[in-house]
């Protein structure tokens, strides 16, 4: 799969995951790697870029074990971006489905 295309999809997935609940870096990578091949080590750069673009903000929370964790929380701008992504994604999937069905006919 084209790496740029994959990055775009991962970006959407990251937004989706963090829209459900605040998550820390390792947790995001771990969760994504359960379902997607993320050996390309692109998750953290994406998290960071999305934060810099204002889609997430951070806060630090201490833990009972080890160093305090930095959590990512989706912003209003991030929620808007996620909606935009989902709309585009649905449109894309529908288009792909139509093409595939047409080919099958």
């Amino acid at each position, binding site marked *: 799969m084209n790496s740029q295309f994959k990055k775009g999809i991962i970006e959407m997935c990251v937004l989706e995951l963090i829209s459900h609940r605040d998550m820390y870096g390792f947790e995001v990578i771990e969760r994504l790697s359960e379902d997607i091949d993320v050996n390309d080590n692109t998750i953290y750069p994406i998290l*960071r870029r999305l934060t810099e673009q204002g889609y997430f903000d951070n806060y630090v929370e201490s833990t009972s074990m080890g160093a305090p964790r*930095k959590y990512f929380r989706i912003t209003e701008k991030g929620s808007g971006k996620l909606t935009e992504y989902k709309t585009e994604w649905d449109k894309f999937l529908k288009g792909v489905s139509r093409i595939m069905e047409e080919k099958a006919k």
Partner: protein
Amino acid sequence: MGQISQRSIKNNGGEGKVKKEYLAKLKQKLEEKDFDKSEINDIIDDYDRMYDDALLKGMEDADIMNFLGDPDRIAFDLCDGKIRKQNRKNNGKIVAIMPFVSLILFFIMGYAFHLWHPGWLVFLLIPVTAIIAGARKDKNGTLIALMPFIATAIYLGFGFGMNLWHPTWLIFFLIPVTAICSGQTRLLGKLTALTPFIAVTAFFILGEYGYYHPGWLVFFLIPMVGVLNEKHVWKAVIYEASFVIAIALYLAIGYLNPIWAQAWLVFLLPVIVSLLFGEYNFQIDGMSVGIRILTIVLIVIYVLFGFLFQTWSYLWLIFLLIPVAAIIGNGKGMQKKLVALSPFVATVAFFLLGYLGGYWQYSWMAFLLIPMTAILTKGKEE
């Protein structure tokens, strides 16, 4: 897992060393990509936490590094949203404004103080600023790139100011000397590479005091230092002894019986020693045989033409061939080579137009080649 070796994982695992090594590598890669210092610290903190989280999950060092990714690739991917260094931004502004600053200074010096010449020298600020501003971690590279300008300024200062074109041209030795000092790591290698320049400089200093003869004997410094690179001490001792004996005999024969013309035959002694050993090459770290030969050939050409045709004041340009040959010979890409070569091309164009054509007031524009080359090749480099 990239460049973090399996060996180090096995050796250092469990002691936190692998993590330190991984984070240090990541930091180095981020620095190479010119990230802002505070951003680097922030990223390293994040990876530090993620590494700890992975350890808490019971993952092994090798798996963690595979999971978090190769530092090289991470740094590359992080470039998308990185914060450019503030000083880089400021440097860009300084470079952009320098042509205007130079022009204003030029007119002030010209109209107010009638210093059109050498007031035009202020235009050298444009390429010099571009080189300094473009400098990242490679301070040696910056110094090498700046050296043609430093040498030219000193040379023209002494030349126009005191008509000391000769022996001020020796200042241009600073260009290859700087390159040698930056490139060599071993003291003896450095000394060996520098001896041709030391010998030529010593020769002309002695010559200024009327000792061209037997001052030329200082050129024996080159092979005498060169043989110190010989692996076998006994061979080096024999070589050195043959040189010392030959020089002593030459001077003794020449001064005691004024037969200098025949006395040079004693120098067959080191030649014979060399033939007996059957070795003609000594390995010198960091300096290829080709560059060494080129250096010697250029010195011979320069001195020969200087004495025969009085070409002292401009034939020094041929010494620029030494760093040029070194740049062409290294393994870097064509774009980087072009940028590295541009100061030398500009210096030659600048000097030839100025010295041979008398167009000093225009020839400085040759230095605009440097930032132009850097700009034109920037996109291709990245």
